[in-house]
């Protein structure tokens, strides 16, 4: 077996050094009833070529986004990732190292985390960011729990534009911890409803911008209303590239930001692994979940970085920890850090502008189709349209024509009564020809 270095001679010599007759001697503590002879009922060892053949066949049965006009978003976005990113994250020293508990021999990873935290803080307009969460949805759930700890209140208001998967992820965790969630009925734009739902028991308001329908929202007034009631404002962003064009959550009064960072540096990967961004106001630092990397000096006074404030964390505080998170998204955070370092502010702003321009062009093309109504007035790179037919069926029809035309809202929330709503995202990878093909396919799908 190519991954196992011991030879039969090695094994014999080692057993004899141990004083064991056979390998079975080392498994004597296993209860007799659970000892197995032979192997489990699965295929045997395979060479590299055979494995590659079998898995390539499976991969070949999927239609990659890059091989078709492609317009899916709804929390995961296809962007062009520079080749440098994937090369660097495959360097052994980054790929095959552990969480940097021994800072003297992990300065590479630690400096990356410090840079990542700084980038995330600046991008979101916040004062502190952690070293990553699993993804945007779990970051949002952790933010709600954190708000409940900070305010000692147990009610969370979830805005009508919050991605339904995020709503469900928050609810799962909130209900186990006796936090009541109030989810407002999904709607393209419903700022007023959020403000009305805030009361004296509200720990936090969770607002997504751009929201699941693509609507870019000024949350300043929601922030004011939340703060007036003693509640925290959690802003969720599922498409971070938007922050190269839109006002940051911090500028609009957010207390905590939970975002999906996949768009920068990370592939679609059928939904994971992604990277959750988590940022907050400085005064909330000690209630934050997850790893934090901080600056210090070594014994000779040289600058260095360490994981810090670990008294919040499970390995020190056990059942008093702020979260149970341990392994997070280190390598995806590195990919984010590299891609963002390549872009810089100049590149990010250009990228964001391009996305907005592509989406506007797509919107204009679709708006011209009879029976198709654009629902989202202010958007970044994604918008909702109402179709005269069932959106899920339209998507299947378009797929049969080789066009991946978007995400039907019913895929996210079958009970919202929005079966005719289609979410369409257009990033910088969408070409003019793609837009023409989408338009033709949708035209056909709505008349069938």
């Amino acid at each position, binding site marked *: 077996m190519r991954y196992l270095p011991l030879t039969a001679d090695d094994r014999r010599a080692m057993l004899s050094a141990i004083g064991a007759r056979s390998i079975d001697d080392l498994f004597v503590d296993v209860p007799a009833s*659970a000892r197995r002879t032979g192997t489990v009922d699965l295929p045997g060892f395979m060479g590299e070529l055979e494995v590659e053949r079998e*898995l390539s066949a499976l991969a070949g049965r999927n239609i990659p986004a890059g091989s078709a006009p492609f317009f899916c978003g709804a929390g995961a976005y296809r962007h062009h990732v520079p080749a440098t990113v994937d090369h660097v994250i495959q360097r052994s020293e980054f790929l095959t190292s552990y969480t940097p508990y021994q800072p003297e021999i992990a300065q590479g990873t630690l400096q990356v985390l410090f840079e990542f935290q700084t980038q995330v803080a600046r991008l979101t307009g916040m004062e502190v960011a952690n070293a990553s969460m699993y993804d945007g949805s779990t970051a949002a759930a952790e933010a709600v729990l954190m708000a409940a700890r900070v305010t000692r209140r147990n009610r969370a208001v979830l805005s009508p534009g919050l991605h339904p998967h995020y709503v469900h992820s928050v609810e799962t965790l909130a209900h186990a911890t006796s936090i009541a969630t109030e989810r407002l009925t999904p709607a393209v734009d419903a700022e007023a409803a959020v403000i009305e739902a805030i009361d004296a028991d509200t720990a936090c308001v969770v607002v997504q911008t751009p929201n699941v329908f693509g609507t870019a929202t000024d949350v300043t007034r929601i922030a004011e209303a939340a703060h007036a009631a003693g509640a925290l404002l959690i802003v969720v962003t599922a498409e971070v590239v938007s922050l190269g064009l839109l006002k940051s959550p911090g500028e609009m009064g957010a207390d905590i930001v939970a975002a999906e960072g996949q768009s920068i540096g990370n592939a679609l990967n059928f939904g994971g692994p992604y990277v959750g961004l988590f940022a907050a106001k400085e005064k909330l630092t000690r209630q934050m979940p997850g790893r934090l990397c901080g600056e210090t000096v070594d014994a000779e006074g040289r600058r260095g970085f360490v994981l810090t404030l670990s008294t919040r964390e*499970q390995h020190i505080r056990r059942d008093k920890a702020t979260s149970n998170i341990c392994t997070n998204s280190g390598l995806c955070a590195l990919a984010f850090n590299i891609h963002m370092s390549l872009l810089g502010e100049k590149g990010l702003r250009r990228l964001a502008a391009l996305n907005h321009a592509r989406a506007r062009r797509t919107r204009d093309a679709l708006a011209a189709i009879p029976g198709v109504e654009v629902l989202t007035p202010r958007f970044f790179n994604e918008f909702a349209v109402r179709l005269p037919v069932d959106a899920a069926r339209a998507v299947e029809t378009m797929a049969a024509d080789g066009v991946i035309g978007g995400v039907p809202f019913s895929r996210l929330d079958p009970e919202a009564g929005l079966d005719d709503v289609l979410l369409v995202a257009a990033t910088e990878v969408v070409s003019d020809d793609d837009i023409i093909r989408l338009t033709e396919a949708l035209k056909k799908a709505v008349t069938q």
Partner: protein
Amino acid sequence: MSSSMNTVGRPTRPEGETSAQGFQSLTGGRGLLQDEPLIFELDGWDKTGVDLPEADVDASDLGDLVRREPIGLPGLSEPETMRHYVRLSQKNHAIDLALYPLGSCTMKHNPRLNEKMARLPGFSDIHPLQPQSTVQGAIELMDRLAHWLKTLTGMPAVALSPKAGAHGELCGLLAIHAAHDARGEHARRVVLCPTSAHGTNPATAAFVGYSVREIAQTQDGRVDLADLEAKLGPDVAAIMVTNPNTCGLFERDIVEIARLTHEAGAYFYCDGANFNAIVGRVRPGDLGVDAMHINLHKTFSTPHGGGGPGAGPVVLSEALAPYAPVPWVTHGPDGFRLEEFEQGEAAKSFGRMNAFHGQMGMYVRALTYMMSHGSDGLKQVAEDAVLNANYIKARLSDVMTPAFPDGPCMHEALFDDRWLEGAGVTTLDFAKAMIDEGFHPMTMYFPLVVHGAMLIEPTETESKIELDRFIEALRALAEAARAGDVERFKGAPHLAPLRRLDETRAARAPRLRWTAPEGSNLAAE
């Protein structure tokens, strides 16, 4: 004329002082080991390393939502970027460099075939919400992975979506919570954990609102059955036990632990962090387990990546399977389906744990690893992992003190610090001195039940030569410690990119992001 003239093709040889002790370069450089500033210090405020066309920004729809203030993100050209990260990378220890004996972390070789497969566009470039008819191969891959995991563990069901070990623990406890709720047993508010448990166990229990009660441990490092029996009761929801446990020992009474737990109406959660010791040889399903997470980034070799991403699928017993989170895979006449909602009156699922379907990239890597080994190779994995750990234990037992000398260990060998008594050297000092010898320290001061714990997990991917090199290094260090060479340890590491870091200072006045030096107008706050 000096013979050190290094003209092309002419060999040079060492001259002058051969010791570099105390040598200082003129610029502070250290040969190949380069100092590297932060990206914020490289004057990239007006640069970008990505060529994008200037788009005409017509942001008229967005009104005053447009971001006007500077963001403060520097950019670098591609060559600068490469240097920045390659220089940084050289300050990291890695499994590809040397043995990485972190107990309980299973730092094994990460096959590159796994990386190659995960990057096939048919897996990496597919969207979680594109029509299911266009991702049949991906859903089938999830189904195959599920089949391997269920067969290896002897369990009837698996929830794939948890994103790491701790997230898997959360999944297991939420299923247990839902199962008790469904029976109206709301009074079960306690989770039992042995004192030797991973920190994530009590943290997860508390995270979902349970209170934690500790179970004592016997002299030989196992769960104390009498204490367990005394602490089980109508208020107990579950017990969380790691097996093999964090002392590196198999819980001999595991079947009895399961029986007592079930008799008391509670569920048995097994922390599967140490599954590498038994994969292919022992099925947790045969031990009475109700739920167990599997760290794909440990046993199934998806890379640790400096702290993730991981993946923590949870296998479930018949009793807990109905409460599993969405989504799951079904197979019908039209092919594979991802069920993303539970339909109908009989719905029991506790809900959704995250957006989308979990860590697909990790599924591909783990399945690649499993298929490569096959059932025979995986059994060999467990056997070699256990053999390597016992070999280390046997060869160090005369110079260090094994915490549990009697009987074999499993995949990791636990030592305490009795052998350092009076030497003036602590476990931490000893571990830091390992860095100077070219090895990553072992897990220290964990588990908490052993004084000055040193937990060594070599894994099965170490050759005998590398194990011997490691053993000789530790023996030499042990000798030096006992010979009173205290300075070697107190000042360690001497040869790392940095010396020991001041962690107290970092926590006292946290600096968690870069800020522009005073008087600089280069960057936004």
